[in-house]
């Protein structure tokens, strides 16, 4: 089984709008092996959810998609064109962020799971409902026989998300895409849900794409992590090296900017200045250059190619952090007091950080 389960090559998604074309996803590439979890982290607007929705064939018709998505030797975009509905929901399923809006409020939980089983697997009603009860039990819902007859509003947020997970697992998918599955729940519930997903993944040798803005979740739960910025994957590595030896200045800056539980209180944070760029008619330059402490002239002139070993540690940067070249660029900027992108740096503040 050398072939990865999922390969994504040069995926681009554009949305025409009245203000211009939004380049939401730009040249995204990654592989996912069977039984592995890849985390996609990024801020709002970085293209992580659009990437997921492209895989799930959930984008609006107006979206212009380019690139190749192969799943176990089958071209996913071709399946979409042929209207093969039984691919999504059986082979590849998705869990969404907000369990309140991804469940139908006027349908009993059991019926919603049973619906999936009846449509995709052709079960009759009775069998579908009894299987729903088993699924609810498997995802750790107490009194499953009672819960199948309840409506979503009768359940807490954590239980609702478990119902959504049960639904996604109903047809034994080989790939589960979880888009911010725990953002709407409390930390204690988050831990239980992530533990559950971990167990299910191991038990079924399922692959998972975990989309999150929480770096801690990505670090703890993924084999590999891809960092997205302005529609591109700017860095990708196994989660250990990504967090301990990051190369892209954006990853580096993100890690420095979050408050950490092991720092004493009132530790001064090191924020990323500015904000993410507009995705309409972006200039031909590294999208992060205006906020980057390492930026040099070439960063404003050409978009850096992805370099490094694909599948090991790859990144798209002219002056990567934690390298000699990058440190020299940073030092040059500090000496000048500003970057090529016009960002002012304060040498004193740098020394303190």
């Amino acid at each position, binding site marked *: 089984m050398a072939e990865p389960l999922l390969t994504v090559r040069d995926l681009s998604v554009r949305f025409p709008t009245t203000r211009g074309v939004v380049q939401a996803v730009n040249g995204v590439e990654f592989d996912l092996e069977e039984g592995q979890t890849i985390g996609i982290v990024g*801020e*709002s607007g970085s293209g992580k959810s659009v990437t997921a929705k492209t895989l799930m064939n959930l984008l609006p018709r107006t979206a212009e998609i380019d690139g190749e998505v192969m799943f176990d030797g089958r071209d996913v975009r071709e399946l979409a064109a042929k209207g093969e509905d039984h691919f999504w929901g059986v082979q590849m399923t998705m869990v969404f962020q907000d369990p309140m809006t991804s469940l139908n409020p006027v349908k009993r939980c059991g019926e919603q799971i049973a619906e999936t089983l009846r449509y995709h697997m052709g079960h009759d009603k009775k069998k579908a409902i009894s299987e729903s009860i088993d699924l609810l039990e498997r995802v750790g819902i107490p009194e499953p026989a009672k819960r199948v007859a309840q409506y979503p509003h009768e359940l*807490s*947020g*954590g*239980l609702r998300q478990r119902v959504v997970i049960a639904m996604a697992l109903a047809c034994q998918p080989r790939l589960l895409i979880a888009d911010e599955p725990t953002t709407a729940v*409390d*930390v*204690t519930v*988050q*831990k*239980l849900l*992530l*533990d559950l997903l971990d167990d299910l993944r191991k038990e079924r040798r399922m692959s998972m794409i975990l989309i999150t*803005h*929480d*770096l*801690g*979740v990505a*670090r*703890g*739960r993924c084999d590999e992590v891809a960092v997205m910025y302005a529609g591109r994957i700017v860095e990708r590595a196994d989660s250990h090296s990504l967090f301990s030896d990051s190369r892209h200045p954006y990853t580096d*800056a*993100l890690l420095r*900017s*979050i*408050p*950490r*539980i*092991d*720092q*004493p*209180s*009132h*530790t*001064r*944070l*090191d*924020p*990323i*200045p500015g*904000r*993410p760029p507009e995705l309409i008619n972006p200039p031909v330059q590294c999208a992060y250059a205006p906020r980057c402490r390492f930026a040099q002239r070439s960063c404003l002139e050409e978009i850096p190619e992805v370099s490094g070993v694909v599948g090991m540690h790859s990144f798209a940067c002219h002056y990567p952090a934690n390298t000699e070249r990058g440190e020299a660029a940073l030092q040059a900027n500090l000496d000048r007091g500003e970057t090529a992108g016009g960002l002012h740096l304060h040498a004193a503040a740098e020394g303190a950080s």
Partner: protein
Amino acid sequence: MAGSGLAPLRDRPDVLLRVEGLVVEFPVGRRDVVHAVSGISFDVAEGETLGIVGESGCGKSTVARAIIRLNDIREGSVMFEGKNLAVLKGEELRKSRPDLQMIFQDPISSLNPRRKVRDVISEGLKVWGSQMGAWSEGRIDELMHAVGVDPKFGDRRPHQFSGGQCQRIGIARALAMDPKVLICDEPVSALDVSVQAQVLNLLEDMKVRYGLTLLFISHDLAVVKNVSDRIIVMYLGKACEIGAADELYEHPRHPYTRALLASIPEPAPTVEVSEGDIEGELPSPINPPKGCRFNTRCPHADEICYEDEPQMEAVGGDHFVACHHPVAVSIDV
């Protein structure tokens, strides 16, 4: 009355806000009440930042809103500069408003979308007119400058700003009243991580520059630790544990505090990860458990926990815990 004890109240001259036995209840239906906050006592010294942390439904926002009387207070007192805010009415209550200002979770929906941000910031000053002294364009420019929004964008409307900038504008609006206490209710929860740090640093700067006392509410344990001097951990309308920020995270004593610290994606080194596996669901605040409210999920619960409500007790220094069986911690020397 169910009380969690007055032990954490300090007898210090610089205490600015003193909340004693605060009870907030909301009627539901004909007979039931939601016991949102059931007897919380704490104080905040001048220039201090008090963090309130807990999961959704624990009553942390209700505490904040009750202090500035956005909710009715059922019982208890809120002493601020010699006055009990809990019983103030009419003009007297109105006069207390500028001193206690609030910023909210959703920065965009807390600004009027149809008004220019300059007008949003200056409205309070205009309402208070002569009492506040100087209202001028210059003052608004200064405020906008202080929070890092270019005053030349003052004529724009909120939708033309990003979430982070809207939160800055919300902070400027609160600062315009020259408040003594700034209540921040999940001020960075809706912001992206890269912007979160900017706003947290800004709050620290404004605290120093304007001599503020902060009440900071968040469900994010790392964020609360970063900004706070002292922290209260709440569960189901009660305080579990109060202590200095570093001490509380270093030596958590209440099983619930430990569960929280063990549940975060990168757990605190002071707890076992398995302590995060607390079972069951948050009980209904309409019918909270007798005794200790955490008894339905606590791994250490025994008979006494179902009978008697634990009171806040000192466990050394400025550290208080309401638990019959506080977890012993080894103090490293």
